[in-house]
Each structure stands twice: as C-alpha cells, then as structure tokens.
C-alpha cells in the first residue's frame, strides 16, 4: 500500500509545484499580492510531499519490500542497512527522486532566508525553481517511476552494483547533487532579474552566498567522487576525464568564473550581462550533465541503464529551460555596458582574464566529452579524445590563472598602481625560484615536480603577503571578513591542489609484480612483503584477502589487506588497501592468482607509492571551505531596513578592499 502512497505524494507535489510556478509569476506580472503570496506555502507543501515520497522509498528499502520493482532490482536480503539506504539513489529512478528532494531543500532554504528581499523578486525566483521542479517531477512520474510494482513479489532481490557498495556511495551523490542543483538558485535569480528588468545590482548581492555555497558543495562532491574512485576501483588514479566526471566538472569551472564575475558586478556594476549569462551556463551545464548520464548517448563507468524515451524527455526539457532562458537573455539582457570603467591594470581585468580561461576550459571539456558524438555525426567513426587531450589543454588554460593569482588581492578595483605589483612580483618570484631550487635537490630532476613546488610557492607566498598586509594595515576584527577569508582559503587550496597533482603525477611509482608468499618487492624505497592470501567474509560478500607487510629501512610501516570480493550473483569487486599519509600513500591492489593449482599461492599484485596525493583532495577541501566561509559573510545577510545604510557603507569598504 505504501508505495502507492509514495506515488500519490509525488502527484500532489507536482500539483503544488505547478501552483508554485504559475501563480506567483502571474502575481508578479499583475502586481497581485495574493497570488505572489502563494509561492512560499506552495514550495513548503511541495517539499513536504517530496520528502514523504523519498521517505517511503527509503522505508521500502529498509523493510525489504521486493514487491517494488526498484527495490527488488537494487537490493537483497544480505545487503547491510546503510547500503540499503544508499541504494535509494543507487540507480536512475531513485537518484532522480534525490535530485528533486535536494531541489526542494534549496527552495525551502531560499523561501526561509529571503524574507528581507522584495516580494515580487522572491515570487519570481520561487516560480522559476517551481518550473524546474515540475519538469523533474513529470520526468519521474512519466518515465522513471521508482514505485512501480513487481508482481508476484520475488523472495529476494538482485543486488546493488558492488562498485556502489562503498562508504563513498552514502556520501558522494547527495553532496554532489547539493552542488549541481544549488546552481539552480543562481539561475532562478538571473531569470527573475531578466523578467523583472530591474537591472539594479542588488540581486547579485543576494545571489552571491547561494552561488558560493552551491559551489562549495560541488567541490566537496567532486573531491568525494575522486577519492572514492581512487580507493575503490583499484586503478590508483584520482581523475579519469570520464564523461560523467566531466559533467560535474563543467559546472564547477563555470561556477568559479561565476563567483568572481558576481563579485565584480556586485561591487562595481560592470559585467552585468556576463554574470547573468554565466549563471545560466552553470545551471544549464548541470542539466546537461544529468542528460548525459541518463540518456545513454555516451558510454561511461557511471552510465545508468538507458532508455531513449528518457533521453528524449530530458532533451526536450533541456531545450525548454536552457533555450528559453538564453532567448530571454537575448531579449532582456542589459543593452549598455554599465558600471564603473576600469583600466587595463585593475582587479576587473584580472578577473576577466580568469573568467575567460575558466569558461574556455569548460567549453574545452564539453567539446572533449561530446567528441565521440561529433565523430558519429561527422561520420569519421567512433573517436574519443582521452586524457592526452584534456591533460595537455587544461594545464595550458590554467597557466595564466596561476600567474595572475598572487596579484589578484593586491589589485585595486578600477585602476591599480604598478609599483605595488612589481614588489609582489619580485617577492613571489624569488620565493618560487628558491623553493624550486630546494625541490630540485629532492626530486632528482623531475621537472613536473619542480614546477609543482614553484607554482605552489608562487601562489601561497602571494596569499601570505596579502594576509600580512591586511594584518599591518587594518584594525583588529576587520582584518579578514568572512568573504575575504573564504577567498584566501580557496586560493590557498589551489596551491595545495597544484602541489598534490604535480608531485603525485611525477613521483608516483607503480609496479605490477608476481609474488609468492614470503617474497618481497621494493617500490619507491618501501619493501612490500607478500604474506599470502586467506579467506574472509563480510555481511554480503566473501573475499580473498591478501596480507602485505610494508617495511622501510627495517622498521614496520604498515600491514595492508587488499581484497578481492565476490558478492552474490558472482560479481567480483577489487577493494584495494591504502595506507594514507601526509607525504605519501601506499596502495596495494590484489590481481589474479598466478598458479591455477594453488601450489605456491602466488598472486599478481599491483603496488604503488603515491607521494603527496592526499594534497589533491586537501586542496579541494580548502576550496570547499572557502566557498562556505565566504557564503557566511554577514554582509550578505543584511535586513531590508538596513539596505539604505548598507549602500552608504559599501563604497567605504570597497576602498579598503
């Protein structure tokens, strides 16, 4: 009975979403306060019903209700409860429901924290979010119903894909969706601004904390996904330029550009149209990502079971939302370049260069991702461009960003003095050269590693110099407001990330070895001794578990247990063993038994040492933190009454910044 209630809840949510999208729009157009007032209660009601539907699906999983097709397909009696909950978003239907749930979380948060904004504006924003919700609820109800019945009820279900049975699965998709979907808020703000035609700057200030928070979540989600791929899949890599990874990376890149463009528009009034366009792009790319994953038009490790009907539906929805918003942009975007003029050497120019690089990078990733499709379309066969394409172009595009990064905070709005900059240049330059020299001693002429150290020094010394300047020049308590602290944290994250990438890429050592029990192999100065394989069992798997003892200079470093798990239905899944460390990871994956008769007990093993790889994710987490901290700036939470005061205050702060 309850699954039908879930479906009913979704239908009611759809009706409320329709009310939320149509009535407030009409109200805002006609100036009818009663209709505009529908927005908040409708949003709240929709959220309640979506949450109810989601909870009912969770309930069905927890209580093994195999009469629900989706539950029977993605769980079984042996699956532990935490993976049964994660299984809710383990396949297409449920993950769509999670998508809508998270959209509702953002909508309700917006409805709650927007009381100080003008009613006309808020009702338009909520209506746009309502339209998006209508699209996705229809998608779920008409093509991807998670509550479909399976009769007669099977005694046991199939299984959740073993790759998904990992702690990463409980965490990565919800956080990633928080980021993806969070860009819908900036999108809705832009549409509301276009509809209202009020090209005042204030809406950009309201949108900024939402954009920063969404971007923070997206950073966290991508980091979690990367770490998961590294720890689970046994390939030892952290990024594969897989179509679905790219799908999350494109909104992230545009998000970086958007965050900076919003800062310019808010503080100086320039780049208004560009900021709007970027908000449209960021969310459009999120939608595009959803399309790519679910339409099955690209092959990927992440691909959901595909169905051309679903692809066609999302494409139509994509065309409506993205095409419609870009058309609206063409009609209503500010015609004249507004805002204050800026000189060639100014913060605006630097941000513009950065924006250009990030946007082009996103376009480059999009092109590379869709290349196999282009190959089919132009009839040149199935061609895909892999890591060589991305690995060459991406660093090239990011180089100017790295070069400009230390100067960013020192540059003034409008026009900047050259002497200050040349002082920064000489200091960061000397620091980078010195660090590169020191690094050269340790890394045996690995140019990539030296470049990584130099680049990180270049960026971080610039940040430290700026922090010192603020410390000297500003009174206590006003040195590092949250917005600036967030910026410094995120930029510092870039330095950490770069050093992690370049050091681990250049200094990692991989060896594939055949070892009999008792034999050792030396990799990167560590001695790995294979002590044989034994059987072990988990809640729903049996595994062959290797024992590998790692020594360095005669002292024990770690005992590692890589596994090869066999789940029900004979699915085999490698679970590699990782010994994490600040300066290096040790990584062991179990291959195949090498002698069929199990006389010697020899196995193929893959051994890695990966210096500084953790810094990659550390850098990502710093960026995430930067997004959250700057979103929390008090300046973004001004009450409406205080707005007048704020506008007087703002110029004062600008001159300090």
């Amino acid at each position, binding site marked *: 009975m309850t699954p039908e209630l879930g479906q009913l809840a979704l239908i009611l949510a759809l009706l409320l979403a329709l009310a939320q999208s149509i009535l407030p729009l009409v109200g805002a157009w006609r100036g009818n306060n009663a209709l505009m007032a529908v927005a908040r209660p409708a949003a709240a009601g929709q959220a309640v019903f979506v949450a109810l539907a989601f909870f009912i699906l969770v309930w069905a999983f927890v209580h093994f209700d195999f009469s629900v097709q989706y539950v029977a397909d993605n769980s079984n009696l042996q699956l532990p409860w935490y993976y049964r909950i994660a299984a809710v978003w383990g396949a297409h239907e449920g993950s769509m429901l999670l998508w809508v749930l998270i959209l509702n979380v953002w909508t309700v948060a917006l409805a709650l924290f927007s009381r100080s904004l003008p009613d006309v504006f808020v009702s338009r924003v909520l209506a746009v979010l309502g339209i998006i919700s209508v699209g996705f609820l229809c998608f779920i109800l008409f093509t991807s119903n998670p509550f479909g019945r399976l009769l007669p009820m099977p005694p046991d279900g199939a299984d959740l894909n073993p790759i998904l049975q990992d702690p990463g699965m409980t965490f990565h998709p919800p956080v990633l969706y928080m980021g993806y979907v969070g860009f819908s808020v900036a999108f809705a703000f832009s549409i509301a601004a276009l509809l209202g035609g009020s090209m005042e700057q204030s809406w950009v200030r309201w949108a900024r904390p939402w954009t920063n928070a969404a971007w923070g979540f997206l950073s966290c989600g991508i980091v979690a996904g990367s770490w998961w791929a590294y720890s689970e899949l046994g390939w030892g890599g952290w990024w594969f330029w897989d179509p679905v990874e790219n799908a999350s990376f494109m909104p992230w890149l545009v998000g970086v550009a958007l965050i900076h463009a919003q800062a310019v528009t808010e503080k100086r009034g320039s780049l208004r*149209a560009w900021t709007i366009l970027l908000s449209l792009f960021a969310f459009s790319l999120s939608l595009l990502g959803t399309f790519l994953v679910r339409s099955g*038009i*690209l*092959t990927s490790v992440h691909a959901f079971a*595909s169905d051309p009907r679903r*692809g066609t539906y999302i494409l139509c929805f*994509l065309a409506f939302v993205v095409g419609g918003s870009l058309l609206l942009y063409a009609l209503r975007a500010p015609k004249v370049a507004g805002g204050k003029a800026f000189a060639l050497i100014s913060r605006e120019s630097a941000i513009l260069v950065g924006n250009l690089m990030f946007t082009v990078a996103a376009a480059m990733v999009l092109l590379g991702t869709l290349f196999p499709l282009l190959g089919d379309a132009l009839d040149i066969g199935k061609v895909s461009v892999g890591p060589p394409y991305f690995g060459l172009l991406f660093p090239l595009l990011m180089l100017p960003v790295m070069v400009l990064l230390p100067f960013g905070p020192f540059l003034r709005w409008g026009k900047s003095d050259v002497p200050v900059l040349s002082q920064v240049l000489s200091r960061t330059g000397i620091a980078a050269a010195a660090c590169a020299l020191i690094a050269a001693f340790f890394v045996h002429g690995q140019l990539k590693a030296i470049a990584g150290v130099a680049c990180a020094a270049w960026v971080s010394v610039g940040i430290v110099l700026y922090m010192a300047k603020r410390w000297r020049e500003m009174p206590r308590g006003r040195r590092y407001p949250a917005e600036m602290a967030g910026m410094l944290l995120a930029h510092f994250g870039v330095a950490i990330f770069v050093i992690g990438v370049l050091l681990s890429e250049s200094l990692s050592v991989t060896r594939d070895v055949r070892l009999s029990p008792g034999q050792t192999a030396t990799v990167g100065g560590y001695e790995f001794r294979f002590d044989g394989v034994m059987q072990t069992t988990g809640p729903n798997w049996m595994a062959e578990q290797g024992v590998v003892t790692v020594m360095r200079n005669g002292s024990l470093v770690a005992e590692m247990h890589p596994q090869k798990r066999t789940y029900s239905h004979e699915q085999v899944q490698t679970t590699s063993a990782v010994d994490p460390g600040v300066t290096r990871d040790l990584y062991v994956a179990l291959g195949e038994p090498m002698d069929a008769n199990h006389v010697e007990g020899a196995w193929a093993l893959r051994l890695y040492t990966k210096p500084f790889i953790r810094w990659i994710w550390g850098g990502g987490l710093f960026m995430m933190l930067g997004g959250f901290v700057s979103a929390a700036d008090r300046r973004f939470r001004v009450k409406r009454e205080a707005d007048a005061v704020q506008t007087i205050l703002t110029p004062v702060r600008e001159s300090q910044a």
Partner: protein
Amino acid sequence: MSRLVPFFAFVLLAALLGFGIWWNSSHDPTAVPSPLINKPAPAFVLPKLDNPKQMVSKDSMLGKPYLVNVFASWCFACGEEHPVLMEQSKQLGIPVVGYDYKDEPADAKAWLGQHGNPYDMVITDQSGHTAIDFGVYGAPETFLIDGKGVIRYKRIGPLTPDVIAQQLMPAIAALEKAP
C-alpha cells in the same frame, strides 16, 4: 544580435544531442570497435577439453578461417546463445572452435553433454590468461579468424540468428572473396 549567439550555440548543441539519441536508437552504443580487428590474433597454446595432453596453437590452426566462440558453463548468456549455435554452427561453412573460459573441465564437459556440443573442437583456458590477450570482456564472445591468423570480426555478447545473418555471414563471405 550578439546577444543571440549563446542561444544559437545552444541550438547547435541540442541538435547534436538529438542526433545522439537518434543515432543510438539505430546503433549499439556499446559496440566499441575492437582494436584487434584486422590485427593478427594473439598467439595461443591451449589444451583440448577432451584430451588435455593435446595442445592446440595458433600456428596449428593457420591455413583456413575458423570461428572462436568463448563460452563457459557458468555463463548465463551462453545458455541463451547455445541453441542458436546448435542449430546454425554447421551452416557457417567454417570450423567452430569452442573456447572454454575460466571453467572447470568437468563442468564444461557436463554442460556440453547436457545441452549438446555444437563445436568442431573445444579448447580450454582455465586461468583466463590467454583470454586477456584476446581482450575478452566476458563470455560469450566470438572471434572470426582468417587463414592468415588475422581477426576479421568480433562480437561481444551472444550470437543471435539476426547477428549471424546480418554480421557474421557477410564477414565470412568477405573472407572467401578476398583470400
């Protein structure tokens, strides 16, 4: 006008995506062309199922084309494919070699005994090492190898009457035309 540029760019993108959906409805997106097509088959030396002492190698098979069909007794899809092979393997006009993949010989013999043996010869690869050289994803898979030992056609997944009529038979016919 320049404000319309993003819109038109999106129209192009949407057209490409629409094309993708249409293309996939008529093509198999997972049909990744094997890098082994038109390349020499990897060298192999594998024992026969019914007589493990007798080894079959790539060199011993040179001279005329043959089909290698990867199967296993544990493989569910092979059970689907099996009746098709029973019915049609003799009509292909070339020898069909069964390639027993990661399987216990006793299980394979029992399986063939129960369902019938469509193969002219069965070789076993218990460890699956040679299968790695062939790039086998999983059973069933089928390779068409010509008289010079070059792979001419590959099918991942079960052979069906349609696949045999539309893909495999033309590939065999092409071999006969161009020696």
